[in-house]
């Protein structure tokens, strides 16, 4: 742990701003362990985020970091990656950031299959602004702006990313960090657009209002309500009702955006010399 701290964290920026029991710190820990596992060069790695509690994560990370505007992380990251394709680009974003205000940028980044790894901290709520519902808040749950229960239908953001063209899509939980680190590592290794949805918890403005107990209770909830995709294959529809699938949901290869563009540059420059 100390070694990880020294290598990847801006220790002078700690302690972090998150509430006690918040799942965002565990998610950040998993991201850093995945970066370490894959062995990314910290000098050639840029971490980009939007706005939200989750989006404060890059500030603690010893990389080039870019804390942008709400929802726009992927658009900024696209500029970084396209302008300097040799950089590894990781986007850390929230459910509101990525699925509401940034939803358009998410589907287009996926469509381009640009080599960006997106880790979506899904705590089912707008944490930073005090608990309003997000596009990933389950129907029926309470939020400060859904005092009578949320009537919106939530996205399955992983299905959306797959449909839009992402080439690696996975879902994990902060309850099972071993699995999560593996999923994020594979996402980083994928040469294309990757989305890893992390089921995390906000005990302060979501758990409390919805009587979900302590942070530990919320992590237990994650354990009890998720099923690994492999195990799910052998389960009946009845058994799977209300369960959230976790694990590697999709993996494929397609031409990566910046590589395709580099080919154009190389072709034109060769033609120019002739």
């Amino acid at each position, binding site marked *: 742990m100390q070694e990880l701290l020294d290598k990847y964290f801006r220790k002078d920026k700690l302690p972090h701003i998150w509430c006690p029991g918040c799942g965002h710190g565990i998610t950040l820990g998993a991201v850093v362990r995945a970066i370490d596992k894959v062995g990314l060069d910290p000098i050639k790695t840029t971490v980009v985020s939007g706005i939200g509690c989750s989006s404060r994560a890059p500030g603690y990370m010893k990389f080039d970091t870019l804390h942008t505007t709400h929802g726009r992380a992927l*658009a900024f990251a696209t500029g970084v990656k396209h302008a300097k394709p040799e950089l590894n680009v990781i986007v850390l974003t929230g459910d509101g950031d990525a699925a509401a205000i940034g939803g358009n940028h998410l589907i287009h980044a996926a469509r381009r299959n640009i080599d960006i790894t997106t880790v979506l901290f899904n705590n089912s709520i707008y944490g930073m602004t005090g608990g309003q519902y997000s596009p990933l808040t389950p129907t029926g749950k309470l939020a400060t702006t859904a005092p009578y229960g949320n009537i919106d239908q939530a996205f399955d953001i992983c299905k959306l990313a797959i449909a839009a063209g992402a080439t690696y899509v996975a879902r994990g939980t902060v309850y099972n960090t071993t699995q999560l680190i593996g999923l994020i590592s594979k996402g980083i290794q994928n040469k294309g657009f990757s989305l890893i949805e992390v089921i995390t918890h906000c005990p302060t403005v979501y758990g409390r209002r919805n009587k979900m107990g302590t942070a530990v209770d919320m992590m237990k909830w994650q354990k009890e309500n998720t099923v690994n995709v492999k195990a799910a294959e052998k389960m009946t529809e009845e058994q799977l009702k209300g369960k959230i699938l976790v694990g590697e949901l999709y993996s494929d290869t397609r031409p990566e955006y910046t590589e395709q*563009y580099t080919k154009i540059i190389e072709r034109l420059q060769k033609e120019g010399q002739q």
Partner: protein
Amino acid sequence: MSEKKPILMQGNEACAKGALAAGVRFFAGYPITPSSEIAEILSEELPKVGGRFIQMEDEIASMAAVIGASLTGSKAMTATSGPGMSLKSENLGYASMAEVPCVIVDVQRVGPSTGGPTAPSQGDIMQARWGTHGDHPIIALAPNSVKETYEVTIKAFNLSERFRTPVILLLDEVIGHMREKVVLPDQESIEIINRKKPTVPPEEYFPYEPDEDGVPKMASYGEGYRFHVTGLTHDKTGFPNLSPGNTDYVIRRLHEKIEKNIDEILMVEEYFMDDAELAVFAYGSPSRSSLSAVRKAREEGIKVGLIRPITIWPFPAETVKKAAQKVSKIIVPEMNLGQLLGEVERYAKSDAEVIGLNRVDGELITPQEVVDKIKEVL
């Protein structure tokens, strides 16, 4: 050396060519009339010089991508028109706060809203100034010919790099689409300014510590500096610091780096102002009609001069103050209902009467209209 032959060129093309001469290596945009030619030309030319083009999903994303690219060390730009400018405004504020150099072209058309996509206008003068939120400085330039569009585009990049700030280039549909014969300068004769880079080791680098000129040195991502950039109020380290003292310091410093160096930024031309008793103040397309009008009036013995700012923001306040002490009246022809007129009034105070000549019908102001106005107010 052989004499360079003049070539027929469109304003938008001159803008794209000027950007290339200035060293642009990244363009992100979203198509909109009357600016699309700039994107089209750069999509063709950028990969030839190892640069990169991308058509984003909207203007918000375009502006974001431009900032991301600039942080990697690329000279980056985008181009749009009024409605797209509104979308770019969100991240224009970010570029201002995070001090990221970039150039935004607004080829103005009649508005509000979809308005008249193929009709010229100067309706975005105040949007350029105040379109984004918060107290921010801005540099905005308005050329009036194809040749000048080329030169001023280079200047826009130079100023953005020099002052780590977004620079807006205000064209209008006529300037963007008209064709004129131009002789472009040799690349070697063009002055190119690049952002100041840190020379200290990473441990000693503060991305927001200004030099004497008010401008901090700028590292690029991927060079080992591992620095943080945020839109939150930050101190010299780049990390959030929302104390009242620091907030006040940051906002004022952003303004000061422009104000302190205003002589490097202001471009204003004056014609026949020495003995003028009456002045015309015009920029962009109307300044062309105004110059012919002033010449014509002079032929008839009317002592009228022309002030033509190329730099619109920061506003050339001193020029107006001085002129107002000399002339009794200032006519301000604009293709809007008097956006810059208010600024002229602000600095002319009671020294000179300020009179508008305004069109918002998507047609140009003619020299005759300006002549008539001159005679009317004499």
